[in-house]
């Protein structure tokens, strides 16, 4: 569905100087600053895939999304969406895609939501029958009935985002780009947004590209992630795989009857591991271990604890994708 080949984008802007003297100096200077926002990226996304596209601020994800949607023209390289070069055939491409930018609405600010939908029906040339069917479906998954006659300006953020998503899907696009679709939403709305995206993907085989800072969005929706950093793709694969590669840490919290009984046990010595590979923290009535799963087995820990005291409860936590990504942002791949 989407093919990106060696795509790069460079921005050139005039240099700015700080302060009052700087403003004066800027009047007479002609210096330019070059910035390579996207640096030679390549990947392919198949029909019906849901891909998480992540990276820190300024990593180049918005820029590459904008090239895929046809807003920006790459400096070099190429990209095709459904066989169309988006920045060369914008209008043709636009008929195939739906876009939701969380920070900025695509709706007509001063019109009632219902009017926005009927304008979009004309804009995308949706037949009466399709319009009726899709509105029914979208209303069911996104539930905007209660505010469909309100002016867009007066909607709450959660309502607006649901409306924006519905507006992006009205013409049943083959590809859906979601840029921070859940930013600032409360948990309930967030969940219904995710549910809607899932259902639409299942129903229409819509290809979904999702960028977000909320990685739980991605964990719930996507099997595959592409991580971009400093304009380059640094990871492209499944979430399971990245966890396999980087998720060496495990943590387990054990609620015990008598914490005093464990006082005498030095777990580092027992397992012969340094603090680097095993971290132990004691609380009022629980003890938690954070360890490298390649050198220590969870059952050993549990049995060692049970030797000392009775166990009330055990909580085992897998590595969070958030932690992995945080690690990657900090230290690189």
């Amino acid at each position, binding site marked *: 569905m989407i093919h990106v080949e060696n795509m790069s984008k460079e921005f050139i802007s005039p240099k700015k100087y700080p302060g009052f003297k700087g403003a004066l100096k800027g009047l007479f200077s002609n210096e330019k600053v070059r910035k390579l926002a996207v640096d030679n990226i390549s990947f392919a996304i198949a029909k019906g895939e849901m891909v998480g596209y992540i990276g820190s601020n300024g990593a180049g994800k918005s820029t590459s999304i904008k090239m895929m949607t046809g807003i920006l023209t790459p400096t070099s390289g190429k990209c095709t969406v459904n066989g169309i070069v988006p920045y060369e055939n914008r209008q043709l491409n636009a008929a195939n895609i739906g876009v939701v930018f969380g920070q900025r609405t*695509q709706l007509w600010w*001063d019109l009632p939501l219902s009017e926005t939908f009927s304008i979009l029906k004309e804009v995308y040339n949706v037949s009466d029958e399709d319009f009726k069917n899709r509105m029914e479906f979208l209303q069911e998954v996104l539930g905007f009935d209660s505010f469909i006659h309100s002016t867009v300006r007066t909607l709450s953020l959660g309502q607006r985002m649901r409306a924006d998503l519905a507006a992006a899907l009205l013409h049943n696009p083959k590809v859906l780009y979601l840029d921070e679709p859940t930013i600032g939403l409360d948990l309930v709305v967030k969940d219904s947004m995710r549910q809607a995206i899932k259902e639409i993907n299942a129903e229409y085989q819509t290809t979904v590209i999702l960028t977000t800072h909320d990685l739980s969005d991605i964990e719930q929706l996507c099997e595959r992630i592409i991580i971009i950093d400093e304009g380059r793709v640094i990871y492209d694969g499944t979430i399971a795989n990245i966890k396999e590669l980087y998720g060496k840490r495990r943590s387990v919290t054990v609620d015990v009857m008598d914490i005093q009984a464990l006082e005498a046990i030095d777990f580092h010595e027992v397992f012969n591991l340094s603090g680097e590979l095993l971290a132990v923290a004691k609380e009022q009535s629980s003890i938690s271990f954070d360890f490298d799963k390649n050198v220590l087995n969870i059952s050993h820990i549990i049995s060692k604890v049970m030797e000392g005291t009775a166990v009330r409860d055990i909580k085992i936590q897998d590595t969070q994708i958030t932690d992995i990504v945080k690690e990657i942002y900090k230290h690189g791949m």
Partner: protein
Amino acid sequence: MRRYFHLYRVFATQFMKSLVQSKVDFIIGLLGFFLSQMFGIVFLSLVFKQIPSLNGWTFEQLVFIYGFAQIPRGIDHFLTDNIWMLAMRYVIRGEFDRFLLRPINPFFQLICDKFQADAVGELIVGFALVVFSVVNHTVTVTPVNVLLFMISVFAGALIYTSIKLFFASLAFWIKDSIAILQLAYETADFAKYPLSIYPKGIRFILTYLIPFAFVAFFPASYFLTGENVIMTIGAEVLIAGIVWIIAYAVFRKGLTVYESAGN
């Protein structure tokens, strides 16, 4: 094409609805334009208390030129005022994105996004002065003249639109082209008076570089004298075609260098 007509009607209807909701703003803006054009006429009448004619033109003739100039200006203003937003904020804030994400012509979307009802103030002044000129026999009404008048007004509005579009599109390269657009747009002020009062340099600019002379003075002088229809209204139509092609090409080129915002 039919789809565009239909869409235009949809946008126009929406605009009418919103107009009803903002009556006060409408009246303020209308009054603003009405006053600024009306004062120009009062100025002329005060001046003509002192002199019999200006460079061979009578008061009545100048009133016609002045009023005639307002009509294409007002029409363009009413229909395509949103082009200013391109120069002022759509590019620099990246708001132009949304026009590139829909399967219809971006220029069409740009002008449909907002109409400028205030322009009615200019149109009222313009039509009132033209009617005044007909009543006092400064110009004569014949079927041919009416037809030429309509052609000329349309071509004049297109010249206005093209000049605005050309300079606004520079924003794609320099981000914010409001100052340069303002500069170009304000040269239209020169064209409210007979070209002959200006030195060669200014006449050259108004004829060949920013051709506002073809919007107002040249066609108006045809209606006043009945001479040179080819060199006045003919030339106006030709110029309108040329500047439109240039302006639209620059706009299209600008789309390919558009950088959005937030990088």
